[in-house]
């Protein structure tokens, strides 16, 4: 299994500012995934991050708002830019089992973001 360390665990931010969330994995993985979980809702995929290429964004999410970096096979960041109260959510990073991609997903502890 993969162990994912996600930071920060929570933050309260002023509107108009940006927050960068970090995910560190204890093993090399090809793809990392970023999800948003709005209050009381399910998880929605924001983007898939591959090392060495631009992230692939899902419908409704754009790079200018959620820039992602993937500098190596164990690390990724998601930035929430120009925040508004509507961005208040839990953000989670995830990886798939590198030994058998597509068979299991592991998640970080999540970042609870509150925008005031």
């Amino acid at each position, binding site marked *: 299994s993969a162990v994912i360390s996600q930071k920060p665990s929570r933050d309260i931010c002023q509107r108009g500012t940006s927050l960068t969330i970090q995910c560190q994995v204890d093993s090399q993985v090809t793809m990392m*995934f970023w999800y948003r979980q709005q209050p009381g809702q*399910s998880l*929605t995929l924001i983007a*898939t991050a591959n090392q060495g290429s631009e992230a692939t964004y899902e419908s409704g999410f754009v790079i200018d708002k959620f820039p992602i970096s993937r500098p190596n096979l164990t690390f990724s960041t998601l930035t929430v830019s120009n925040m508004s109260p509507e961005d208040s959510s839990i953000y989670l990073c995830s990886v798939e089992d590198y030994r058998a991609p*597509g*068979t*299991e*997903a592991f998640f970080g*502890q*999540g970042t609870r973001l509150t925008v005031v």
Partner: protein
Amino acid sequence: AQTVTQSQPEMSVQEAETVTLSCTYDTSESDYYLFWYKQPPSRQMILVIRQEAYKQQNATENRFSVNFQKAAKSFSLKISDSQLGDAAMYFCAYMRNMLTFGGGTRLMVKP
């Protein structure tokens, strides 16, 4: 696109009793994976159980078991001998090329 539906927003069970959470999904694929994840207040997503679509046998993990009906595209989770620590949000998920989650079911366990 695949969709996953959990028709029970909330469920309640008495401690030590059995509860079943429902999940249906829509896909045209024959090879995929299905999961049940638990999310306690700590926010950590915890894998409860996994089912490979090509396997006819229902997966079992201790007190957790599934009823996988491939033709009906149904994947329910049964929790036996419910414990207070089982209280959480439960998400059904489908994986082919990407992971798609259902809307979740909040399970409450009464002492």
